[in-house]
């Protein structure tokens, strides 16, 4: 025989459940495997001994309420040997009565109706802890548990004295080996929670704001909820991820109805102002590309200024207007929620931005109805769409099937688009769509990666291979496709849809939108270069495409929102409250 000897071989006895036998065998073998002279042998023996004892004890416990004779023997012996302390039992009885009396008084106080009197409670508690009987270590664990249970029952009545108990009995000390009794842990947690709640109720930091929001009834109007949610985004996410995940017991202090209402919005990641601010920058880059192309003479010189202005206006101006259209709500929310004024540029910026866009649109060589529509779009539709579109990309806190369901709910829209193109335009446009999707996806991914946006690692490799193939197909399709306005409009739409099709597995919406915006931009630039090299593209269409893609992101987002937003609600909080 080679290899490790079994437990029983190490002990030199046949398998048994008799604890006495195991101990005798261990003692006998110990003389050969002396811890001094044969540390390795001793360790093997000790492991075998402990395993054997565990098995034997486990078997005894498994036998249920009737302990095996072996255990009984040991217990019997011990009791016989302990019987010598006659005086001790008398002493114990006397002390026990005192403890009972003190605990009874405390219980009475706790169960009495009406407001608790803190001083009375505290003195009753001290009386329990100071009786000589409570000093006894043998019954201590039981008394400790009993006290904890007693205090937990009339919660929150006992709250004022919980802190005293924890301090006097040093319950809060974190011990890495011994597990505290369950009741004791609950008391300690509650004391810590009480301290945290006190801090959160009076605080003004992000966590406190989120806590205060959740502990009050939610506003009736879902519109105001959504607007509020838009600006509380980070605070809530931090609160959910840090505070509530670490301390699920805090949900006791939250308003259930409010939580449910809010979680329809907050259960998922949101767009952030910072994410939106990135967009104008990217717009500017795209516009610059057009401008540079014009300067280089690749674009016809006749209406360069007009085309440039058009692109400038319809692209970034929409974004700026979108940001500033909300400056009033921002100000109000700042004042209410953060307790301070927003920065001045934010307050007045919308006027400048609005005036600027009006000016720009009015100087454009386009008709007034078009200009008006552009402004309406910028001021109304886009911000609304962005705010409303918050809850589409639910990722965090959802299970696989929930994600699948969501993907299916979103996909009909995508399928509809693709079908329309296939039916209306024909195959080349469909291939172009796919190609656009590929190119934009690659660009978006690499950008997201560079900006440390995480994406699902499992799918990354395969999607990159597939996307490279699709890109090559797109090159071919665009090369072949004719330059008709319908196709262009459709490809614009398709870019958008393609962008939206990507499920940001672990992205927040803000990250996803930035990534998507990047995709649109890259696609536009890509299409521009391609068209210029083939000579089949006009500037106006290009600018329209840039802007149009962006508009459509919003439109499709709105549609998706209408289809599925309220259907999925946040599970984080509910799961947290289920844990407690």
């Amino acid at each position: 025989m080679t290899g490790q000897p079994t437990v029983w071989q190490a002990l030199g006895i046949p398998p048994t459940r008799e604890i006495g036998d195991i101990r005798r065998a261990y003692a006998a073998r110990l003389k050969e495997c002396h811890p001094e002279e044969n540390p390795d042998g001793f360790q093997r023996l000790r492991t075998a001994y402990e395993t054997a004892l565990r098995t034997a004890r486990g078997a005894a416990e498994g036998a249920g309420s009737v302990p095996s004779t072996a255990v009984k023997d040991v217990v019997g012996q011990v009791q016989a040997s302990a019987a010598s302390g006659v005086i001790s039992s008398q002493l114990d009885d006397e002390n026990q009565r005192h403890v009972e009396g003190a605990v009874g008084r405390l219980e009475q106080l706790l169960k009495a109706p009406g407001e608790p009197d803190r001083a009375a409670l505290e003195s009753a508690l001290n009386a329990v802890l100071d009786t000589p009987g409570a000093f006894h270590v043998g019954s201590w664990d039981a008394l400790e548990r009993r006290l904890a249970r007693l205090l937990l029952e009339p919660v929150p009545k006992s709250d004022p004295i919980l802190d005293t108990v924890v301090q006097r009995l040093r319950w809060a000390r974190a011990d890495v080996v011994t597990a505290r009794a369950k009741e004791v842990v609950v008391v300690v947690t509650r004391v810590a929670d009480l301290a945290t709640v006190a801090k959160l109720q009076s605080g003004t930091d992000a966590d406190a704001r989120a806590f205060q929001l959740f502990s009050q009834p939610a506003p009736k109007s879902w519109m105001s909820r959504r607007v509020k949610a838009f600006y509380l985004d980070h605070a809530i996410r931090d609160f959910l991820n840090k505070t509530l995940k670490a301390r699920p017991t805090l949900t006791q202090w939250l308003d259930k109805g409010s939580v449910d209402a809010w979680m329809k919005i907050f259960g998922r990641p949101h767009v952030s102002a910072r994410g939106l601010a990135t967009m104008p920058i990217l717009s500017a880059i795209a516009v610059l590309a057009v401008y540079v192309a014009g300067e280089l003479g690749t674009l016809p010189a006749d209406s360069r200024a007009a085309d440039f202005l058009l692109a400038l206006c319809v692209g970034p101006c929409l974004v700026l207007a979108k940001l500033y259209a909300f400056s009033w709500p921002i100000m109000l929310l700042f004042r209410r929620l953060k307790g301070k004024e927003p920065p001045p540029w934010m307050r007045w910026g919308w006027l400048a931005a609005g005036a600027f866009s009006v000016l720009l649109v009015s100087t454009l060589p386009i008709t007034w109805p078009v200009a008006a529509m552009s402004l309406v779009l910028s001021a109304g539709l886009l911000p609304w769409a962005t705010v409303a579109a918050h809850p589409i990309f639910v990722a965090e806190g959802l299970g696989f099937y929930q994600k699948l369901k969501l993907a299916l709910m979103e996909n009909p829209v995508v399928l509809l688009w693709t079908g329309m193109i296939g039916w209306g335009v024909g195959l080349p446009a469909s291939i172009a769509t796919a190609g656009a999707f590929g190119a934009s996806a690659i660009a978006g991914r690499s950008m997201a990666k560079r900006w440390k946006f995480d994406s699902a690692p499992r799918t990354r490799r395969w999607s990159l291979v597939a996307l490279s193939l699709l890109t090559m197909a797109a090159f071919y399709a665009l090369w072949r496709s004719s330059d008709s306005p319908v196709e262009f409009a459709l490809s614009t739409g398709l870019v958008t849809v393609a962008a939206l099709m990507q499920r940001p597995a672990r992205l927040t919406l803000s990250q996803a939108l930035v990534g998507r915006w990047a995709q649109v931009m890259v696609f536009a630039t890509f299409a521009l270069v391609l068209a210029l090299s083939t000579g089949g593209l006009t500037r106006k269409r290009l600018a329209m495409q840039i802007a149009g893609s962006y508009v459509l992101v919003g439109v499709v987002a709105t549609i998706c929102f209408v289809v599925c937003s309220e259907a999925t609600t946040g599970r984080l909080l509910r799961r947290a409250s289920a844990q407690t």
Partner: protein
Amino acid sequence: MLTPSAVSIDDDGQLLVGMAARERQVTHPALTATAFKRYMGTNRMTRLGAREFLPEELSALVLASLKADAEHYLGEPVKSAIITVPAYFNDKQRKATRRAGELAGLAVDRLINEPTAAALAYGIHRRQDETKFLVFDLGGGTFDVSILEIFEGVIEVRASTGDTYLGGEDFNEVLIQDFLRQHGTTLSFTSREQAPLLYEVLRDQAERARRQLTVEAVAKMVVSWKDQHFEYSVTVDQFETLCQRLLARLRDPVIRALRDSKVDLDQVKEIVLVGGATRMPVVRRAVTRMFGRFPATSLNPDEAVALGAAIQAGLKARDAALKEVVLTDVCPYTLGVDSGERRPDGSFRLDVFTPIIERNTVIPASREKRFTTLSDGQEKIALKIYQGESRIASENIYLGTIEMPVPPRRAREVAVTCRFTYDINGLLEVDVEVPATHERRQLVIFDRESGEPGIDLEHRRRDLAALKVHPREKDPNRAALARAARCFEHFLGEEREEVRRQLSTFEAALDTQDPVTADHARARLLKALDALEGKSFL
């Protein structure tokens, strides 16, 4: 007679160790060191005269004096020793103790936990029984609790816990504080550093009062300072009230020991009291209340530990009389490493203490755990080693760091195995291996002598040996002189005159250079001093 842990340096630069040094504590606090056991393992330097000493060097001097005494008695050289340490001594403190032994010229065969030694002294005669008992060891500076079981000739330590900062000294401190509450303003005493001489007087008086309370219902502290006389009296009941907090602290380790050992208090056959401080009635009463029964007092609390160490020496030598006894001890504290966890939301929770050897594991023990990298492309893993019971790593005692280069891969793809080996002397060894590269490293916990410990130790040993120590034959006379000097300062009026008279008689006897005359005179002097201030407690 016991040798107190005290080292003093006298005016001509010679060293005094033991009783004589202890007596000088009150009169020459700046030249005397006591209670240095508390600082073992630290770099705290004590200045005595011209030279600075490490705690381990002071211990080495005491050990050397003990060695000389033993050699004198046995008439043969003593080469090796078994040294007892509080069970709760950590790795650093144990290493320092071992170095102290080596500095004293002793090969340290074994460090044994004090409660284990005491239990050995208690249990060795009961080895035929099958029994469990609890050793309650409250010494001058440390408190240890151990639960032991004897069966089939095996003495097994089931659990060992304690509090390294709780002991008789703390009870003295309670009395001093109460004394100062009463007289502090007139004495204008603020801190020990501000008036070391006064503090020593206070401490001496507190110790006396505490011992008096062992036999009497009321005790007095009398302090003469700057021609003023301060009196303070305390009754047993008052003292008990004052000690309430300390007594409450005695309970925690007991409860932990019971929990860890999974032994029911009903199964514990006897409570064995060890350590000088357990003579105090307040402590005995607290013990009685705590356990609901009277503790066993069959052992002399001062000698039990030494007796146990002697038995351990016998066990170690496989003495025939002890042949059938095997002792197994435990590691009294948890040893582990600092680690991090990734939360579900992707953030990290750092500073998590992961135990590798849990407290009260039977030693020698060797345990292994695997750890993986936390982030992509991580190039090394640094394992910080801690000892303690808190779940938060940095709240524990830091022992050292071991760094291990790992191949840069994705997070959680590279594993290292970390093996802790805790030997029978309570010294720890850490091995780390990366299975992927088969690279191994062993931890050298950075000691002061991390460079070349052997050479340095040898150097320091010679250094200490060069110090002049008073010839041991004259020690009793020195001690008597020091005590008389202290009494002379303490008493006033007629009593002072009496001390002076006795002292000069003794000095005259010493001048005759006749040892017999000197011995007689010394006996007379000590008797007179006993009559004045009560029996010496040293």
